[in-house]
């Protein structure tokens, strides 16, 4: 099998398997917390702007979040089966996309030989795509204040890329200077800092957000370990003996 087809098949199977497990975990843990946060978001939207009936729900953050309301004219899935079905579909696609990056990168280093190696690459993926961006932009719930979207997306992508490059230099660099450059690449985006909102005030209870961050990071850990392990297990079975 050609290398391209090998990467595609390994990534597709690992992505589907991991996506199904990841979606089930998200639907059981993070999604109920997102729905709960939306009840606070809707309570804010429904309440008059200057009522003093419920002071806690009328912080500056609450009013700011009204500007973040979804575009009412755009299509949106109905709650329940449709919405959760899309979460399942897009979690599988997320698994496929991340698996393509993981398997492609591991091919530069000669290709995954077994599931142990795959798990190590998966942990690297967890560090690159969850830990590093999460230091500046922790998982957040709807109705929480945040900096400019495009700026946050650029910082997120730049941080993931710099962390991936830094880890590669640390793992494969053949001189102390390259290793030091790797450390610099990992630290630099954190020193630059992620775009932050002007105010952190929000109607979302801190405990709810805390539970969400823990659930999101924990599911991501399972996701990446499984994605790497599956890819490492599949790759020798799908690659041609000559490759």
């Amino acid at each position, binding site marked *: 099998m050609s*290398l391209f087809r090998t990467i595609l098949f390994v990534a597709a199977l690992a992505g589907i398997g991991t996506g199904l497990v990841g979606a089930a975990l998200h639907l059981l843990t993070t999604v109920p917390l997102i729905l709960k946060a939306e009840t606070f978001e809707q309570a804010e939207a429904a309440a008059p702007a200057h009522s003093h009936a419920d002071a806690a729900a009328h912080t500056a953050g609450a009013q700011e979040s009204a500007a973040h309301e979804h575009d009412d004219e755009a299509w*949106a899935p109905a709650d329940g089966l449709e919405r*959760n079905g899309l979460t399942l579909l897009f*979690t599988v*696609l997320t698994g496929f*996309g991340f698996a393509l*990056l993981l398997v*492609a990168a591991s091919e530069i280093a000669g290709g995954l030989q077994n599931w142990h190696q795959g798990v190590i690459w998966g942990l690297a993926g967890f560090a690159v795509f969850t830990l590093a961006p999460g230091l500046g*932009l922790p998982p957040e719930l709807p109705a929480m204040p945040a900096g400019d979207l495009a700026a946050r997306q650029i910082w*997120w992508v730049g941080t993931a890329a710099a962390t991936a490059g830094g880890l590669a230099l640390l793992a494969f660099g053949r001189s102390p200077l390259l290793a030091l450059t790797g450390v610099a690449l990992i630290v630099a985006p954190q020193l630059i800092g992620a775009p932050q909102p002007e105010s952190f005030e929000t109607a979302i209870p801190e405990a709810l957000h805390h539970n969400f961050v823990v659930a999101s990071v924990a599911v991501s850990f399972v996701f990446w370990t499984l994605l790497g392990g599956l890819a490492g297990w599949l790759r020798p079975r799908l690659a041609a003996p000559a490759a």
Partner: protein
Amino acid sequence: MTTRNGQNLAAAHDSLAARAVAITFAALIGVVVLGGVGFSHVSAMHNATHDVRHANAFPCH
């Protein structure tokens, strides 16, 4: 001998180039897929992927 070595070198070179192309294209597909799921600004796309973006800590809203 020289010819044979030359051929081997050419074959190895082709294989390296082919590997680079395969790896690059596979990674590009990954970037496009993740760009659509996690980063698209189209409203309908945002609404469809809303929970996945929040749950996976992609920047959202």
